[in-house]
């Protein structure tokens, strides 16, 4: 046994480490800058070490022939339930929404099942990292930025507290339930509910501030409170609040509230921003675009309202990234971006909003989001434009390690294609 492991060790050393290799002769699309034809890319110890027309490397290094192929940075999905929910309709497999209204101490990362069948399915379309979002209540908990590769959730975690998820109170006069469809309620009830929620939210932040002071003062009676403790990075501006606000009124409310509370926010679920775009730009507030492939909200909205929203954000100078807001369609993230291109978003912007921009929004652009020296080698090799549906992903690397592209789907495909 011992001799055998020694043998393997030697073999591994002689072949070079798995996360060190050279891609040669491909079109490299750094995303942060212009594409380079017939170029090479050196990955060393899982990081991008060099990009250029000619790179001299030590003998024996693994070489990947990239002729006719394209190299892009891996994509980042800014809103998913990846690993937190397996089969939507089966309660036992869903760990997204916890009970209670204020639970900032909850951490999405630990509920990400690394064996979820969704993970290989999603990454087979070039998505290398995803925000796993908790849901429910007002403050749902901490969203975690996860690499879509790892033996454990710990290995997958890129940033456990990438954002704090806040469902901003809104005046909703209708709700949807599976048994009853769209249920309309009265404005008075909705307003009362909204006022109550807003009051709770203000009070919660007040108590978090009091807790912050008490902790700083360090008096003898101070006791740790796990929920309020989790709010400290938010109050200190270290962790942004991921605030869902759909319509103009809710967005205005959220902006005013964030200014008053002096917290950093990222807006999500924006559908009808109305006249708030100039404000978003002025205040430098980024947006996670809700599913672009969606119906208009109102009957009299333009048929392409959701398709053209990203272009509208871009024209207004608002920074944004795409999210799939689920599991099932996370693999279609690039096509959300492509639909936005069909309806006016410049192509380069679309590509950036699934790579570089989410990295910037989540504060990890020193590490991922583009092909630049020193960044993590999260790379996809394709036979063409990754936003085009028919493009095939050939190989995928996460932190320099090649990832298997097989999934539940490819296995079933092969098995049943071969059925006599």
């Amino acid at each position, binding site marked *: 046994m011992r001799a055998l492991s020694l043998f393997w060790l030697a073999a591994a050393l002689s072949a070079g480490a798995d996360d060190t290799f050279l891609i040669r002769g491909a079109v490299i699309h750094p995303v942060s800058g212009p594409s380079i034809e017939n170029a090479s890319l050196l990955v060393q110890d899982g990081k991008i070490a060099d990009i250029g027309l000619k790179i001299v490397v030590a003998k024996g290094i693994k070489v990947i022939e990239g002729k006719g192929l394209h190299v892009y940075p891996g994509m980042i999905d800014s809103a998913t339930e990846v690993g937190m929910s397996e089969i*939507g309709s089966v*309660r036992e497999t869903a760990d997204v929404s916890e009970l209670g209204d204020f639970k900032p101490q909850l951490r999405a990362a630990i509920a990400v099942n690394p064996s979820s069948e969704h993970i290989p399915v999603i990454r087979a379309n070039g998505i290398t990292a995803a925000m796993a979002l908790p849901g429910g209540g007002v403050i749902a908990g901490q969203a975690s930025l996860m690499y879509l590769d790892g033996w454990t959730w710990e290995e997958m975690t890129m940033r456990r507290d990438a954002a704090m998820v806040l469902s901003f109170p809104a005046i909703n006069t209708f709700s949807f339930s599976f048994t009853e469809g769209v249920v309309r309620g009265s404005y008075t009830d909705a307003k009362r509910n909204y006022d109550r929620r807003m009051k709770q939210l203000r009070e919660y932040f007040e108590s978090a501030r009091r807790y912050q002071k008490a902790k700083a003062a360090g008096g003898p009676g101070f006791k740790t409170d796990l929920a309020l403790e989790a709010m400290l990075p938010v109050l200190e501006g270290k962790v942004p609040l991921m605030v869902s606000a759909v319509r103009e009124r809710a967005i205005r409310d959220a902006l005013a509230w964030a200014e008053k509370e002096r917290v950093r926010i990222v807006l999500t679920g924006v559908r009808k921003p109305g006249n708030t775009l100039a404000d978003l730009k002025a205040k430098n507030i980024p947006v996670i675009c809700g599913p672009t492939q969606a119906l208009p909200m109102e009957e009299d909205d333009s*048929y392409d309202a959701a398709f053209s929203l990203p272009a509208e954000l871009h024209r207004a100078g608002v920074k944004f990234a795409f999210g799939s807001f689920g599991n099932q369609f996370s693999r*279609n993230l690039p096509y959300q971006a*492509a639909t936005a291109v*069909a309806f006016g978003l410049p192509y380069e912007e679309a590509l950036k909003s699934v790579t570089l921009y989410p990295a910037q929004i989540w504060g990890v652009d020193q590490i991922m989001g583009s092909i630049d020296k020193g960044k993590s080698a999260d790379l996809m090799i394709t036979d063409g434009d990754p936003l*085009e*549906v*028919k493009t095939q992903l050939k190989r995928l690397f996460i932190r320099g390690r090649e990832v298997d592209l097989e999934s539940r*789907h490819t296995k079933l495909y092969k098995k049943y294609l071969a059925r006599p």
Partner: protein
Amino acid sequence: MKLLCFILAVPAVVWAAPPVVVQNATVITVTRGAFKGSILVKDGKIAEVGEKVLVPPGAQVIDAGGQYVMPGIIDAHSHIAADSINEGSVSVSSMVGIEDVLDPEDVGIYRALAGGVTTANILHGSANSIGGKCQVIKMRWGQDAEGILFEGAKPGIKFALGENPKRQGMPSGVGRRSQGTPDNLRYPGTRMGVEDVIRQAFNEAKQYQQAWKEYREKSARGEKVIPPPRDLKLEPLVEALEGKRLVHAHCYRADEILMLLRVADEFGFKIKTLQHVLEGYKVAKEIAAHGAGASTFSDWWAYKVEAYDAIPYNAAIMLKKGVLVSLNSDSGELMRRLNTEAAKTMKYGGLTENEALSLITINPARQLDLDNRIGSIETGKDADLVIYDKHPLSSYAKVLKVLIDGQVYFDRDKDLSERDKRRLEKNRLLEKEKQQQQQQKKQGPRRPAA
């Protein structure tokens, strides 16, 4: 009534459609290749297709230089334009039909049109083992309920297998426990029960068919006999037995698919299409042998247990194993981009461009027995055409114009140019309502409360 429809429909076509020529486009015929050329439309039908066609005097010319024209998309499974879709109180609801609840003012019609869809089969829901009757419609936005009917389309009926029809018999899952009292349970609660409901219904239908046969024979011989009482539930099933009504069956798992094929064999009728049929790839051989078509999703999966083995290669495997396959939406949203859904079968399973496009055009037309009318660009067929700015299988393609029966029903430029006008109109109406409300406040309630 039928006669009246006919009289109304004929002049409508003649008056409303002057000759149209779509010029200089890349014409994707689906059945006869693609080429740069033009299409002449007369009286709502495709009159000529070729590299050059003669433009008749007075023709409306649409210059589609640099653009792509393909047959109107056919969605074999939709629920738009229906006021209600599930008569869920009984396990066999073949007496009800979508035709009676069509809403021609559903904006979903316009949105589908804007996504290149010209025809859709509007189905009853999946709450019952044997559901209601379906209705094929054309997206003739602006016309009334009779105006959107696909005239002459063969009638259909919805069946449903698996989780949905048995849900009311064995409630479980989120929010359903509270309903699980014995009082409101509805048979069936298992896949065994679903088979039983279908067999019982067809057993009855056979007897009903026989009773009528005997009656007709006897009265033909001049015997004085009382006709059997009419049964509106069994009539559509007899039509299904006689091949006059197409059966479209919602299904997921391989076991239930095979069950239905065998029940159909037993009673001597055909399943026209299996709908969703997410595990169709596991029994493609059996489906092909029965001659059923399959209409599936491109990549939906894992939203419920019976969708956990769904794979995006389903369409490709079934097609390769000889099944007539189409892609459908079952969604007013997805319906608007079936072109890129088709493109996914090139990614997953390596279908050719033409195979991919046939999944949303000629194949669903065949599944509805309407391939003599729609589904490809051929002389004599209905001039239902979609014009895209880019190749329709590209993620970046956008619908520019849609013609139905040779008439432009969607024009993106027109839609864009009318948006300001519509906004002003809306503001004017809102303002008017506000003023009326203020007026009413001043005047107080019109009548004292009783």
